[in-house]
């Protein structure tokens, strides 16, 4: 079955006209190179070349203690840094059989969703800009600034906030946190319709994204596409629903699913997810229980020998962390299943046969973060 769906061998021919898109192309959002074979303006095939920003994070983890690993996971998918932190923390907590306080679970979930909104806002800005709508870029960043201010007040950093630590949080959130989060929700509920007026309803934008880059549900499963990109193809892959972690089992929210599978469907899933994230935050922010911000942990964490696995839903899909421990204070092997790596390799299927101008729309709709691909 999968052999028919996945085209794994691409045969280059000598008369192919090959153009390199990247590694310094603005719409690849990082150092990624697409080797695009063209026939006129039509894309014949496309080969992604990765590794330009490989830092060996998985290998570096083998030399670090579990507290030190946290700051490396920030630097994989930097737009959902908090969610990446949480994945590693949850693995360690599960292995040590530590029950984190309810307060930590609530705060982590709220921060996850704030981080998801901030990530989708930046994606919306960049997607608009890729397609030539520069105004969208400023409006998205204006609203993202409010979330980053909340982050800065509580953790001291805006993007790479190593706020989680195995067992809980580094320190308690700022006393203003609840008030400012509620202020942000009321603010953003008013501003989100502007996004639709500016970009979603725009005729030029719709002509460029509708019916472009069709991905069937089978293809999404075969390539392991997860997150909003997979849900745009009617693939129910939300880890928050399948295997709830944190406080997700206590909240009501819908998993946004679209059946069209094109670029516009993936766009609409993300726009809908921002609303759903706000719903989750509203349910939790008033009910944060009092208590400790961290469970009791030993200063030197030694995981019992064995294998541990945990997965979370980042803003781009399923991030899975697999740890093999031999009982030392550093892991024997650490493996991250990053969502962007799987999402990238479906590009050839989506772009082949289309025009080269659509390539930018497709790669934008997959919302790739290159440091997460290379790690």
């Amino acid at each position, binding site marked *: 079955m999968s052999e028919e769906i996945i085209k794994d061998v691409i045969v280059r021919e000598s008369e192919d006209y090959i153009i390199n898109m990247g590694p310094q192309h603005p719409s690849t959002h990082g150092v990624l190179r697409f080797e695009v074979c063209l026939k006129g303006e039509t894309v014949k095939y496309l080969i992604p070349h990765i590794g330009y920003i490989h830092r060996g994070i998985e290998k570096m983890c083998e030399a670090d203690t579990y507290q*030190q690993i946290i700051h490396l996971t920030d630097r994989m998918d930097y737009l959902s840094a908090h969610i990446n932190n949480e994945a590693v923390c949850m693995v360690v907590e599960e292995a040590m059989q530590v029950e984190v306080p309810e307060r930590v679970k609530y705060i982590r979930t709220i921060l996850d969703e704030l981080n998801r909104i901030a990530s989708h806002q930046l994606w919306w800005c960049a997607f608009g800009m890729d397609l030539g709508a520069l*105004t969208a870029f400023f409006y998205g960043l*204006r609203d993202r*600034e409010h979330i980053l201010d909340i982050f800065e007040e509580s953790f*001291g950093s805006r993007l790479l906030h*190593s706020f989680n630590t195995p067992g809980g949080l*580094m320190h308690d959130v700022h006393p203003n946190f609840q008030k400012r989060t509620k202020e942000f929700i009321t603010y953003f509920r008013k501003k989100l319709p502007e996004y639709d*007026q500016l970009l979603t309803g725009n005729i*030029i934008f719709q002509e460029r994204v509708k019916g472009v880059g069709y991905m069937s549900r089978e293809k999404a499963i075969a390539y392991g596409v997860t997150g909003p990109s997979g849900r745009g193809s009617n693939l129910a892959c939300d880890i928050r629903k399948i295997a709830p972690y944190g406080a997700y089992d206590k909240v009501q929210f819908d998993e946004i699913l679209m059946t069209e599978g094109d670029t516009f469907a993936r766009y609409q899933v993300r726009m809908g997810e921002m609303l759903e994230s706000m719903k989750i935050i509203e349910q939790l922010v008033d009910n944060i229980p009092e208590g400790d911000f961290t469970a009791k942990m030993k200063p030197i964490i030694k995981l019992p020998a064995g294998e541990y696995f945990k997965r979370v839903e980042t803003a781009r899909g399923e991030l899975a962390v697999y740890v093999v421990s031999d009982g030392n204070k550093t892991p024997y092997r650490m493996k991250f299943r990053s969502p962007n790596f799987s999402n990238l390799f479906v590009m050839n299927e989506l772009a082949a046969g289309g025009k080269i101008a659509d390539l930018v729309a497709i790669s934008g709709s997959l919302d790739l973060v290159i440091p997460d691909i290379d790690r």
Partner: protein
Amino acid sequence: MNSISKYFSDLFRGISSLWAGMRVTGKYFISPGQIVTQQYPENRATLKMEPRFKGEIIMPHDENNQHACTGCGICEINCPNGSIEIITDRVPNVDGKPERVIDKHIFHLSMCTFCGLCVKTCPSDALAFGQEFEHAVFDRHKLTKVLNQPGSSLKKEAKK
């Protein structure tokens, strides 16, 4: 006939969708009270960072030029990047026994990733985050800083 009506309906749909977007930008154009842009280099005098902002790592000294660092080296062990180096010295204390004091607490800002483990794990709360964020220099050696001030000594109450 059908294609002509489609042409005109597309045209008007396009104009109306452009108008919807222009209305949003026009609304902000005529209401300058909603401008959120900060004029950064000009507002330097009034710019205040959050108290928890992680700008750099500092060692607070009191008015007697005393700090709380005992030179235990826990921050150096916990740092994932090797950006902290502690050079200790042994000097005799009041009882005549040799005691460990810091000679230099060296902080390499160029290697720091601001994970905050040194500040969190310090047993005597000798380290803190500073609010300074304008770190650009022409010579990278200026990014290596000695945190304890010259002539400083250990706070008496910090001793256990």
